[in-house]
């Protein structure tokens, strides 16, 4: 080597939150409880979509399992890409949801990340009933139908409204009615009678969890941000699978206190935060660490996201459980019109004081991809904030060029840097 030497860049790293171990402990207990129930046949187990009617299921005494979370774990453990082709060969296209294809592929291969992570667990819990809400997408319906046949278990569903602008009473009433109609068949499976007071208590806990989760996420509006999107994607576990339980509420109380301490001490989640980034779209589960390192190495804190915000259900009201659940699950970003989505993201960009936006165009997840109909261009014009779209996927790593992602992200941060000076 001669002449100049390349400088040894010091890569700032994301600092670990102590409360992360509380969330991990919660998840371990949650999966062990499900596993024990699956083996004993009691309590009954309901499978539920991530924003399905978990409160109703808990009120009827079911333990609730969320295949989407399992699929995200397949992605995060980088098992998914090898498993997706199994489902492709069955006729599930590589172009549809890679949660579905990875999850069915794992079942066909007889593997699960649960057995890697949690000692003693060998398989996913068997469903007594499967309940979906198409608010995530139509794919969840096909996904649950496949397992319903495999396990000979009933499949029930709520069919959402889509492209919702202003939410009307008619929207709410129609979803509330569908929820009420689930009660009778669910009572048959659970062997228990529906108890409205119990539902109210669950809804109250769900709301408490949601409020704490919102407060957790909003700490990222502080400068420097005490939290990143990459922390959020794993810390959200209890908000997804545990809403309606006291234990999930307790986890977020501890986490919130730690984040508020960080704010008080002006301690950022990454060292030397220079750029604040909003992430729209799904995480790239198999690249969480790589992306976290990429951004923190460039002193860019990806601190807020549409995705993590999607488990905030502020409409939940224990005094009016069915209508408020119907409203909460219809206020959801994913089912709203583009106008509403645009207004929402604009509000978030202001709240979190961001310098730029990353849109993830996820090949197999059109419902969580918001950059295909000109939204980045419209928002750039309205806010003056630059954006970058990266082409990738949530679980299918065959859809990714890491080199291109890296160059795009580096060039984007260079652009922010040059425009700051």
């Amino acid at each position, binding site marked *: 080597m001669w002449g100049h*030497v*390349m*400088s040894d860049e010091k890569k700032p790293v994301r600092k670990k939150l102590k409360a992360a171990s509380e969330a991990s402990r919660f998840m371990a207990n949650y999966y062990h409880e499900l596993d024990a129930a699956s083996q004993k046949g009691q309590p009954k187990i309901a499978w539920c979509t991530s924003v399905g009617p978990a409160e109703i299921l808990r009120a009827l005494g079911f333990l609730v399992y969320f295949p989407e979370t399992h699929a995200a774990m397949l992605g995060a453990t980088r098992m998914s890409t090898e498993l997706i082709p199994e489902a492709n060969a069955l006729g599930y296209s590589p172009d549809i949801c890679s949660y579905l294809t990875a999850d069915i592929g794992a079942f066909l291969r007889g593997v699960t990340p649960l057995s890697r992570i949690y000692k003693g667990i060998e398989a996913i819990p068997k469903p007594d009933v499967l309940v979906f809400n198409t608010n995530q997408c139509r794919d969840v319906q096909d996904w649950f139908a496949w397992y319903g046949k495999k396990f000979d278990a009933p499949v029930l569903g709520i069919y959402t409204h889509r492209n919702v602008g202003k939410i009307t009473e008619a929207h709410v009433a129609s979803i509330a009615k569908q929820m009420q109609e689930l009660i009778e068949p669910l009572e048959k499976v659970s062997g228990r009678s529906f108890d409205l007071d119990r539902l109210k208590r669950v809804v109250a806990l769900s709301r408490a969890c949601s409020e704490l989760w919102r407060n957790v996420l909003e700490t990222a509006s502080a400068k420097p941000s005490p939290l990143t999107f990459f922390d959020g994607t794993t810390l959200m576990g209890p908000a997804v699978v545990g809403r309606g339980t006291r234990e999930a509420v307790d986890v977020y109380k501890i986490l919130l206190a730690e984040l508020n301490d960080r704010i008080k001490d002006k301690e950022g989640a990454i060292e030397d935060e220079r750029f604040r980034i909003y992430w729209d779209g799904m995480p790239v589960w198999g690249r969480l660490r790589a992306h976290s390192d990429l951004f923190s190495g460039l002193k860019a804190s990806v601190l807020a996201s549409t995705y993590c915000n999607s488990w905030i259900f502020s409409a939940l009201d224990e005094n009016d459980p069915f209508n408020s659940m119907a409203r909460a699950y219809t206020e959801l970003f994913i089912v709203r019109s583009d106008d509403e989505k645009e207004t929402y993201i604009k509000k978030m960009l202001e709240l979190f004081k961001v310098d730029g936006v990353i849109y993830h165009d996820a090949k197999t997840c059109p419902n969580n991809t918001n950059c295909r109909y000109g939204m980045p261009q419209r928002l750039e014009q309205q806010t003056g904030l630059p954006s970058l779209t990266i082409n990738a996927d949530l679980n299918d790593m065959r859809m990714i060029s890491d080199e291109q992602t890296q160059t795009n992200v580096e060039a984007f941060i260079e652009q922010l840097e040059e425009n700051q000076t």
Partner: protein
Amino acid sequence: MKSKPCYAGVDVGASRTKVAILDTSKNLIGHAVKKSGTDFTATADACLILALKMAGKKKSDIKNTVSTGYGRKNVSFARDTKTEIGCHAKGCFLYFPFATTIIDIGGQDNKVIKLDRSGKRTGFKMNRKCAAGTGAFLEEMAMRLDVSLEEMNGLASQSKNMIKLGSFCTVFSATEVLENIRQGKNLPDIVKGVYYSMIKRVLEMDALTEKVVMTGGVVAHNAFMVKMTEEMIGRKILVPDYPQLTGAIGAALYAMQNKP
């Protein structure tokens, strides 16, 4: 007598490695281009030696070096790295100091970069995962047509009745080419169709606002493609003297700007 200092920019692209040496007045005094191959470090070293020879300079005259391109982290003598997007922007602004939309067609990727009148980037796009519209596409098609890359520009310019290739995908496009060969279509018409397909892929990446500049190795060796693009967009296109070196020149400008 002590020689005047100079600045080096190294652009290690997926296909070719380029080195540019600038004097303190930003004049291009030396340059070299070599196939990148598999040992980026060795190729960059070899290019630097050639470029220094052309400039009449010694390694010790180089005040600072910046590297860019896919292999930017493999250049042992560079003090810093910048992305090729930043470097192409900077290199172009040296020659065209006004608001521009830059189209760079490289060996493995295409870029559309937008600069405001002060040279600041307002946005950029790279091609998606697919190689259609890049130099790699041209190489694949040349192989299918059994012609050398150097022959393509001359062939395309002879076309009287261009055939159109419709597919996004390089493999599907190759199938379309084979179909046209089977139908006995003229080689120049097929080659022009290949150019047309590449330009279409690039034009759909972003809207061309402002004055349009084209750069990159593909542009350097296929001047007819620039003429075709002008006809397709109905506007004059600006091309720097050394379109393949724009990234390396931009890297040298960064080296000058951020000198230690």
